[in-house]
């Protein structure tokens, strides 16, 4: 106890001695993250929600939360997955799934630079890739990935957004079949899926799946610049264990980084190569004109066996179950973050090409050539930290690596591999993110550390405490911790971009004149209530500060009543909400010019109110109405009205 106390005193003195620049927190940190009222942040940060299934939008450097974009999980606030329009977005081959585990957002690129059109993000559990359109900050497309399980080495885009790539974590029988689990070895396959992104409308379509040996494919990144046309995947469990992986998958000294020449495979499939395999996966598209989603089941996928395309795939031996697989802005260096070691392994793309040319192979695995470790190695970063996970890059030739076990960010120099600086994280950092840090042109300035554990960092909130991110200034030689801020769910990874690239394109309203919703009511003249057997459709409008109609009679117990509500407003930031007593669903939150639908199944006779759920105007409290519900056998005709 005495010794411990003494040590603390010593450490404290030491810190004072080093001066403020080396301290954990810079003295003017508050000023540097302060964004004055009414001012805008310099960067958007799109931070994954992990097990919340969503994507949150923060400003940097302030750490202010602007929006949680619902992606894979139902969100009652925005009626995502609750209203009739968005339910199809959560459809899969397993039926409606109200949740997923959202991990790795990545922003679309043009010529290797972030273009700010879309954010792609993976659903890990029931493999899916979602596309968020940054003109509306809404999820507009979700595609399910067949033959995949634990969609983790995803969703990363190539440098012209030719592809968004989704790699499987678990290998599984392909196609699925009823076999003994112990027959894993040699029988299970790992699918790496290349999803084509239409350059015009951004529509996603699976171009091909590469059926790789039955390893776990952990993370991936595209080549860029000189290595454009290649994609790199880290692997672990090259032991192909199917039980107690924490031991059995940690036996090989080296696993692999798989280097995939996707351009070569693209040529092969464009020339008719590959096998069309029966499949069943959902493709869900939300249309901003109809304000509605459709879900289509696709029945076929093109698969490619790497053995069919010689020279398309190579293995780069990489020590200690590498986790993150990161490519520097020049495209020359491929970093394997060996999570069970202290070191980072950096491979050289040009050395890899010469090794391939010289056929310097060190055996093969399932027909895929293994390159000689020494022949492809560019260098090793010996940090003294433990458990490297992920690396991002600034624009000045530095890498920033998160170390989970030693809980720190380490800055090091590309080329010399020397460690420049280390700063602690509170606690157990997972990913780090530098705005643009996975492109040819990083914006630099900040690194954001996303931590797995916070313990005592915030006011306690019972056993479950907040997750958090930490912002460091990286504009100087040494990193400086500026800010802690809480995050939504578990922040696995984030993508950051200069706000100027995105904000000018952010839509203010939906044009009512362009509303193509099947049940849109774009003028009060078209307001009506229609009965079709037990189904009743209410064509309702809303504008400050009333619903039209606001009195409806002739509804009967046992009816299924669809409220199709169109917001006639055409003013920025004037949404209206609506909900009905006893509706077994969420409210609607309808943006100007938009139509949304909720279903109400009245079970009791009476007069039941509905009201606007968003404080829309001075007369918001007056924005209410009644529906009269009569017995099932009543002969009261439908009628509706507004005013007298």
């Amino acid at each position, binding site marked *: 106890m005495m010794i411990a106390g003494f040590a603390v005193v010593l450490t404290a003195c030491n810190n004072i001695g080093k001066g403020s620049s080396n301290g954990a927190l810079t003295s003017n940190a508050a000023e540097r993250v302060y964004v004055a009222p009414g001012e805008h942040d310099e960067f958007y940060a799109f931070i994954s929600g992990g097990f919340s299934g969503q994507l949150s939008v923060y400003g940097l450097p302030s750490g202010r939360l602007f929006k949680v974009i619902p992606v894979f999980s139902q969100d009652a606030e925005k009626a995502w997955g609750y209203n009739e329009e968005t339910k199809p977005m959560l459809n899969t081959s397993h039926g409606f799934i109200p949740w997923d585990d959202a991990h790795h957002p990545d922003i679309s690129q043009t010529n290797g630079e972030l273009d700010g059109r879309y954010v792609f993000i993976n659903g890990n559990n029931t493999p899916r890739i979602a596309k968020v359109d940054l003109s509306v900050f809404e999820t507009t497309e979700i595609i399910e990935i067949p033959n995949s399980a634990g969609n983790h080495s995803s969703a990363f885009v190539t440098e012209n957004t030719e592809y968004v790539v989704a790699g499987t974590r678990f290998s599984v029988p392909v196609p699925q079949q009823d076999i003994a689990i112990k027959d894993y070895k040699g029988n299970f396959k790992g699918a790496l899926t290349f999803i084509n992104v239409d350059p015009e409308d951004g529509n996603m379509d699976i171009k091909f799946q590469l059926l790789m040996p039955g390893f776990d494919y952990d993370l991936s990144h595209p080549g860029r610049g000189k290595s454009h046309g290649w994609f790199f995947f880290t692997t672990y469990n090259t032991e192909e264990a199917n039980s107690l992986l924490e031991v059995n998958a940690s036996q090989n000294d080296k696993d692999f980084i798989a280097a995939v020449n996707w351009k070569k495979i693209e040529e092969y499939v464009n020339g008719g190569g590959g096998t069309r395999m029966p499949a069943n996966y959902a493709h869900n598209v939300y249309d901003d004109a109809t304000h509605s989603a459709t879900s289509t089941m696709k029945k076929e996928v093109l698969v490619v066996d790497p053995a069919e395309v010689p020279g398309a795939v190579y293995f780069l031996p990489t020590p200690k179950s590498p986790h993150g697989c990161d490519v520097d802005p020049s495209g020359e260096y491929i970093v394997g973050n060996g999570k069970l070691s202290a070191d980072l392994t950096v491979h050289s793309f040009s050395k890899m090409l010469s090794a391939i040319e010289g056929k310097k192979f060190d055996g093969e695995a399932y027909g895929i050539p293994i390159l000689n470790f020494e022949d492809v190695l560019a260098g090793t970063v010996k940090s003294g930290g433990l458990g490297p996970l992920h690396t991002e890059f600034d624009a000045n030739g530095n890498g920033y690596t998160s170390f989970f076990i030693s809980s720190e960010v380490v800055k090091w120099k590309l080329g010399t591999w020397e460690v420049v600086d280390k700063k602690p994280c509170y606690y157990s950092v997972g990913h780090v993110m530098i705005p643009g840090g996975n492109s040819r042109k990083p914006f630099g300035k900040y690194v954001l550390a996303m931590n797995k554990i916070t313990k005592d960092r915030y006011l306690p909130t019972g056993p479950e405490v907040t997750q958090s991110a930490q912002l460091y200034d990286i504009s100087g030689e040494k990193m400086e911790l500026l800010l802690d801020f809480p995050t939504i769910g578990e922040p696995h990874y984030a993508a950051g971009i200069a706000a100027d690239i995105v904000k000018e394109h952010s839509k203010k*309203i939906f044009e009512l004149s362009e509303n193509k919703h099947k049940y849109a009511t774009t003028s009060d003249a078209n307001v009506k209530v229609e009965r079709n057997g037990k189904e009743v459709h209410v064509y309702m409008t809303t504008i400050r500060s009333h619903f039209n109609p606001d009195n409806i009679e002739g509804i009967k117990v046992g009816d299924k009543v669809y409220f199709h509500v169109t917001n006639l407003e*055409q*003013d920025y930031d004037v949404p209206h909400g609506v909900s009905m007593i006893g509706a077994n669903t969420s409210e609607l939150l309808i943006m100007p010019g938009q139509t949304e639908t909720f279903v109400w199944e009245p079970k009791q006779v009476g007069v039941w109110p509905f009201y606007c759920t968003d404080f829309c105007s001075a*007369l918001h409290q007056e924005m209410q109405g009644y529906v009269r519900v009569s017995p099932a056998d009543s002969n009261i005709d439908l009628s509706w009205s507004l005013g007298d």
Partner: protein
Amino acid sequence: MVIGALLPLMLFLFPLWNITLEAPQYPIPLGMDIYINDFADTNPHDIKNINLMNHYVGMKYIPDAIPEFKIFPIGIIITTLIGLIIGIKANYKWFLYWFIMMVLVSAAGLYDFYLWEHDYGHNLDPRAIMKFTNPDGSVMGFQPPLFGSKAILNFKAHSYPQPGAYCLALGMALGLISYFVGKKENNTEKSKTSE
């Protein structure tokens, strides 16, 4: 004189007047451009949003069209034609008559605009959601200023002429200048002939 007579035609291209409403909730203010034949949004949907604001105090909707939109263009075309005929054919003295006519026509237009504004700002729905009274107990009106800026409840209203009006004014000024130039030339000629 010919240029002076043609300039008012710019009213078909540029707005005559603009009314802008500022409020804290409208970082981009609401605005209406008044053309001789149309009311137009300064930014998309502004008039709809002005109407929505105004319905709370019982003001009528700004109409899509008013009779003036037919009368004014005809007036401008006729006065332009007259101006052109005068400019080409007539004696400089007619330039002054044209100018006086234009002053009268413009004044009539402004007076008409004032009457409409007054009606718009004072002829309120007796069932208005919000009723405001002046300190003397009379019903508060919401007439925007004819010219200048004025605070109306939470809004600040600005009412100013636009390029169309400037063209009209410039055209009229050119007419007047032509008159004086013509007069001077005439005097010079007279003095020449008298010599």
